[in-house]
């Protein structure tokens, strides 16, 4: 009898599970890194809007975009936060974006982050060469991207995987568009000297942080700055031939059934409170009246490559596919 009773209770638990799984949800947010920022924004929004419920899926840009593509016929997300502007533009070109770019919001945005599109930037970030100064001889300090080839860099470089990291993808697109064949020769040389593409930014930074490799090529700013702030011997080098300042889009999907809440969420993210969270996550806040963290001091004097985002977005698929097959070998 005892046995049978426990079996019955198992069934009851299973039934409860099904009920829980079917319960309603309000807003679904998909976000690429930093996951801590997405969590903080969700928590802040819920505090400002008591009773609201938000489901969050936080991963790398490549995985968020894959999930959106897989769910195309049956979309779940309402709001999407991405790490690279071209990914946002690609969603827009597919007709998936509900335009939300009110002039009142745009007016608050730093001019250098006002890229064209049907959505606003949540913030921005810059890629650089991240060097572990403990294990890199002074004489070998790179000054430019192209300094990173040659025998002394064999097995010393990592780079975030651009199929996963949105910022690395926008870097590759910009780099190829600026340097053409020279860029592809450079990537081939990197591959030949044993460069690793281990995953998104955290995975690329880890070996350099602990010193088993010397340099992250095109490492994203906020991850490296966080590690630097924590006391790791890291230097961020902005190459003389220029880097990219990448706006990070926050957008609403056309398929949303909660447009009003979705807009309220974007408004919250762009409010002073939301932008303080962006600054705290060590991104450059979109609003000009919110100062970036002190670690970004002097970011506006860094040489950058001028970017035509629409053109880059149109080249996205072909460049990334070439990078995946010839450089990553997948």
């Amino acid at each position: 009898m005892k046995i049978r009773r426990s079996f019955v209770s198992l069934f009851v638990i299973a039934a409860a599970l099904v009920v829980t799984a079917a319960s309603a949800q309000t807003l679904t947010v998909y976000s690429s890194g930093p996951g801590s920022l997405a969590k903080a924004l969700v928590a802040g929004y819920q505090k400002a809007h008591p009773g609201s419920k938000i489901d969050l899926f936080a991963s790398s840009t490549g995985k968020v975009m894959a999930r959106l593509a897989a769910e195309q016929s049956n979309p779940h997300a309402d709001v999407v936060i991405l790490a690279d502007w071209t990914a946002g533009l690609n969603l827009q070109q597919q007709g998936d974006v509900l335009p939300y770019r009110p002039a009142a919001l745009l007016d608050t945005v730093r001019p250098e982050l006002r890229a064209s599109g049907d959505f606003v930037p949540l913030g921005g970030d810059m890629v650089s060469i991240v060097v572990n100064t403990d294990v890199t001889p002074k004489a070998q300090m790179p000054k430019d991207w192209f300094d990173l080839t040659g025998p002394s860099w064999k097995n010393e470089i990592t780079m975030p995987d651009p199929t996963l990291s949105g910022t690395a993808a926008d870097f590759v697109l910009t780099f190829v568009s600026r340097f053409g064949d020279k860029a592809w020769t450079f990537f081939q040389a990197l591959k030949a000297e044993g460069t690793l593409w281990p995953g998104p930014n955290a995975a690329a930074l880890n070996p350099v942080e602990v010193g088993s490799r010397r340099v992250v090529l095109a490492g994203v700013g906020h991850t490296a700055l966080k590690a630097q702030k924590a006391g790791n011997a890291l230097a961020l080098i902005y190459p003389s031939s220029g880097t990219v300042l990448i706006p990070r889009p926050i957008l609403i999907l056309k398929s949303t059934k909660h447009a009003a809440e979705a807009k309220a969420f974007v408004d919250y993210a762009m409010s002073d409170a939301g932008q303080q969270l962006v600054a705290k996550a060590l991104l450059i806040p979109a609003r000009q009246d919110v100062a970036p963290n002190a670690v970004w001091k002097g970011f506006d004097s860094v040489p950058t490559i001028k970017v035509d985002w629409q053109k880059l977005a149109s080249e996205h698929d072909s460049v990334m596919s070439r990078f995946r097959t010839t450089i990553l070998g997948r």
Partner: protein
Amino acid sequence: MRRALTTLVWIALAALVLAPLAMTLLQALFPQALSQGSWRGALAPLRQLLTPNVARELVGTLELAAEVTAIAVVLGAALALLMVRAPPVGEAAVHGLLITPFLIPPYLTGLAWSLLAQPRGYLDQLVGPGLSAAARVLYSPLGIALVMALHLTPILYLALRTALDERQSELEFAARVHGASPLRAFRSVTLPLVMPALAAGGLLVFLASVEEYGVPAVLGAYANLHVLTLAVDRATSVYPVRLPHAAALSSLLWGLALVAWLLYRPLARPTGQPVRRARQPAARHLWSLLPSCGFILLATALPLGAIIATSLLKAQTAGLHAGNFSLEHYRAIFAQGSSGWLALRTSLLLSVGAAVLSTALAFAVAWVLRAGGRGSAVLDFVAALPTAMPGVVLAVALILVWNAPWNPVPLYGRAGILLISYTTLFLPQALRYAQIGFAGVHSDLELAGRIHGASGLVTLRRVTLPLVLPGLLAGSAIVFGFAMRELVTSIMLQPPGVQTISTFVFGQFEQGNPGDAMAMAVTGILTTTLLLGLFQRFEVRGDPLPAPSPTPMTSR
């Protein structure tokens, strides 16, 4: 009654096993049939497998599986010989500890070893630097094979030990009496006798290594490892999604697993009653503690120690010293409503649900199978088929079925999809136990019930079910244990806002919070072990049950 149940069983198996596989093959053969209803582009995904990149992934998978099998065979044979021929002091305890690697899921062993061997990891801190070689080995294809082999060696150890126990003394003794040297006696008598066990164990390890996703996912990135499981995962979870390519790669991987499994199946059939001969009481040796405990240290003690230590450290970088220990990571998990707490709850609910569903289905299948008759061999095969279905293959298949626009039940993207995947993955386990349960029930008892006027349903409920219940409960406990640690489909099908223990551990580790990750890992291991222990106590009062034997599932 029997007809109805048979039909129900076939419907369930068609939905859980056959439809997903059919959809995968269809997608691989006719990529546009599902999306656009056209036969155009037929076979294109299969043709796209003929590239150097896919060839490298196939070779990578085969190489890795061969290395793991070789290492596990050598280690397992050595341990089995040692334990039988020169048992150490405290043999029973050592035997128990030798199979503890099963307690830790493989991906966790991988994470633990990276905590141990990475530069400035625990080995550096405890033994001193100069162990950077350890890191270099760990993040290489060989290191990945070693970590996987540590986890799978117990399969071979158990298989060979049983074979040696049964076969050793008398026949070999006879050979010695007839003048054979010890080496010759071993080579021409004992070795041929243990060959079937060796082959079965080796194939199981090979199958598990071909299917393995967790360890390559954890360590592979730094070793530039190219294997099929990772490629399938990438084709579905990284933009641009290439579902036809994923389906084609899946079919290839599934084919590999199927071959290994089909070779294994005849070997796994019990070859008559195991003969328990009184073993000559072998002398216990102190020296043989050294190799056996060495294995335990590498396979269980060190990884578990690293996991526990990490879960208790305040600041990971500050290292192992008093003052740096705290319970804050556990507090973070057990805070009501925190993401860790929710993950724990989700895993518990899903695992209980999967245990109930797969056990119920297994009971029905076993009941139909026992009645025999036409099609029972096919039914047996289909129900056991998930054994040869790598987790990545099932995940792709479930996406194809449950995210299809024509499917009226859009389970994809909800927690329910994980219930489906767990139930399917662990059905063979539940079935084995259900069949063991049925083996002890004489059909006379059911006939007696019928003769005394009970209907078929009443007999099933009041005679058969109570008799097989211990077997069913043992099976559901095993399914529960496996579901609590399942990684592959949980990560590939992860619905928004839903985390399980394994995706939480994986995600927190990836995002640089190893403390929270490992606190969750410890909680998961403890919860599972405690609950399984409770079940075991519960069973002891009833009929004695066979101990769970290793299956390919050990890799999940």
